[in-house]
């Protein structure tokens, strides 16, 4: 009889789920909502500010070309190289700024931790796919652009199960 | 007030635990030193950890003693460290105990140093069957030949590996 009750319970549990709300996030139409603007770091306090670790954003007016981000990345992904930029900044005598290869980046965010001048943050944008490898290399001017991300969907827990909505 | 009390209790508990672990390690070290004398050298003694260094000849004896008298019945890992400056390779067995509840948190590092140019050591596979794959890995990663181990052969590395054992210090990763 144990066998029969086991089957019946399984059947009941299975059929119950037919009427539950479906959990799937329909990705291209729906996108997840994230907590903040992205992962940031406060060098004075020495802790980060919670956020999604997506593509970087580089503030040209704060970057001093100190290479600390590139040094941090050297042992991890070797994704950051310092390149010459045409711009002239007072704080950046050598005119070098990081250029990030997203084909190599692992999005650990240790470069953001390494930056002492609030120049490098991470944003919510994670859709970086491209047709060629060379398109994955983001130059400093590309990194300066603030990406647009409009995710509105969150996990909600209702009476008919959890769902994305 | 209550919080203070609980905190006090906790600190007391911690102290009791530390004392217990100290007592345990003391009794363990004492028994080993009384039994083996000068042959066994204590390297360090921390909370719940202690490391003893033996000569390669005494390795099996010490392991057998630890297993039979103190209930260290398995090895969490067996690994090697290369010391080219001393021309030696150190082999560490991290021994733990599942049968003796007192020694649950305790780990004895049984280590020995063998000659780097011709590294050979006695296998502990008959005492701790659990070191089987660890010793095999150590063989291919550091080139230490374990006498008595039935399969000193390739395990993790590629099948066509023909270079030197990769965890030796003079093996350099390309581009580094």
């Amino acid at each position: 009889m144990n066998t029969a009750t086991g089957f019946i319970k399984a059947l009941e549990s299975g059929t119950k789920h037919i009427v539950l709300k479906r959990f799937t996030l329909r990705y291209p139409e729906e996108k997840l909502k994230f907590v903040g603007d992205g992962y940031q770091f406060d060098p004075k306090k020495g802790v980060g500010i919670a956020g999604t670790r997506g593509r970087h954003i580089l503030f040209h007016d704060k970057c001093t070309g100190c290479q600390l981000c590139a040094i941090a990345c050297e042992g991890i992904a070797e994704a950051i190289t310092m390149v010459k930029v045409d711009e002239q900044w007072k704080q950046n005598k050598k005119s070098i700024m990081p250029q990030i290869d997203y084909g190599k980046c692992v999005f650990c965010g240790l470069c953001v931790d390494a930056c002492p001048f609030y120049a490098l943050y991470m944003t919510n944008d994670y859709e970086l796919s491209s047709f060629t490898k060379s398109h994955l290399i983001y130059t400093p001017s590309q990194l300066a652009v603030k990406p647009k991300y409009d995710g509105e969907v969150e996990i909600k827990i209702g009476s008919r199960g959890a769902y994305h909505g | 007030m209550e919080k203070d009390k609980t905190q006090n209790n906790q600190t007391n508990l911690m102290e009791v635990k530390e004392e217990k672990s100290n007592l345990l390690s003391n009794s363990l070290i004492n028994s080993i030193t009384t039994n083996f004398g000068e042959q066994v050298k204590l390297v360090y003694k921390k909370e719940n950890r202690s490391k003893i260094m033996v000569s390669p000849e005494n390795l099996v004896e010490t392991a057998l003693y630890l297993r039979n008298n103190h209930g260290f019945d398995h090895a969490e890992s067996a690994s090697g460290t290369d010391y080219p400056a001393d021309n030696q390779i150190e082999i560490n067995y991290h021994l733990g105990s599942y049968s003796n509840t007192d020694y649950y948190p305790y780990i004895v590092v049984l280590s020995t140093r063998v000659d780097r140019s011709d590294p050979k050591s006695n296998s502990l596979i008959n005492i701790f069957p659990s070191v089987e794959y660890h010793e095999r890995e150590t063989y291919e990663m550091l080139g230490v030949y374990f006498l008595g181990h039935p399969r000193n052969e390739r395990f993790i590395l590629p099948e066509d590996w023909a270079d030197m054992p990769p965890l030796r210090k003079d093996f350099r990763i390309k581009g580094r």
Partner: protein
Amino acid sequence: MGSLTPDFRFGNFVASIVWLVLVVLALFTVLILPIIFFSLFYVPLPIVDGQVLTPYLFFSMMVDPSRTLPIVQFFIHTDIFRAAIFPGFAFAALIAAVTIFVERKLLAKMQLRVGPLYAGKVEGIFQLLADGLKLLTKEIIVPSGADKPIFWLAPIMFVSTAAAVVALIPVASGWVVADVDVGLIAAFAILGFFPLIALLFSWASNSKYPFIGGLRALHQLIAFEIPFFLSALPVVILSSSLNLSDIARSQNIFWNIFILPINAFVFFISSLAELERIPFDLPEAESEIVAGWLTETTGMIYGLIQLGSYLKLYALAGLFVILFLGGWYGPQIFPQELIPGAHESNLPLLQMLALDGLYNPITVNSIFWFLVKTIVVIFLMLIIRGINPRIRIDILLHTGWYKLIVLTFINLFVVLMLIYGGIIGPEGVISIR
């Protein structure tokens, strides 16, 4: 857009389609029509409505809707219609296709997924079409060292054997492709070919995993053949006929499932095993032997075998309905006339809609109830897959040889005792006829 070629022009596309249509039309008039007309000299033409159906008459009848009906009426009583369209292959294949789609959607719902979604806008109803097209266009890889004739033949044999079982299933009184007196035995005989095909194909694939899968299929199907057959035996005793239509007709008052519930259970379980569906999909156990005897199948070979196995699913569900669920009997819910007073009116459109001479309320009702019951049985077979794991070969064989056979034997004796005790049967207290 990236998906289009750079030199794509919509005008060229339309022009190419127009060109294609013109070429086809020209070929049709120049080559195919003469061939048809020449061949018609040698083919005896059927007589419809008292006239010989010449092509000229055919085309003129097609123009007048009121004269189309006799042709259709004539056509649906030909053997070729029964074998090819209803209740034969096309009908069964349609049900098989719907089954595949419903299964995917149902399992998805049970597993909190969405299932097929994008093909065909509405809940992905054209997913199967897309999959079929994909399978058609895929390369068929034949393993080196494979026994090529058998490798190519096996999928076709699989589908045709499944279609042969379908041919024996009556969907309404008189609506069956092959109304044979040994229908039940014929069905079991044809079902017995499947392990042979599986073994032949797996052997011909020249690979280890198919070989193990084929052996498993052989073991499994033979182990379940006997309880399968024995569980149908009491039904034969009760209705004293092997003809499937007669068996269905004998249940116009009581369904057999009320008298033989244990047999129905055993039949259901064994048909799951025959179908190699979870929990009995050992020949295709993907975590142990890759894909079992289907490992080396590619492209349309796989598609044909899938089609065959879903045809088989329909056939066995139909067999279950015929044997235990009273066949096509059910309360009459279709009206005597499709549109009341339609065939007395003078409007030709209404007369056409009345489908005078085509619409038979009893047959339509029978087909409806048969379909409803079959779909319920198919549904039960599908839902089992969502809640159960695969079982092990030795448990499976043990279940087949020890438990189910014993159950059927006990039930057989019980039925015999009831009949000779005069409780059920033709002259019993509970009369079946």
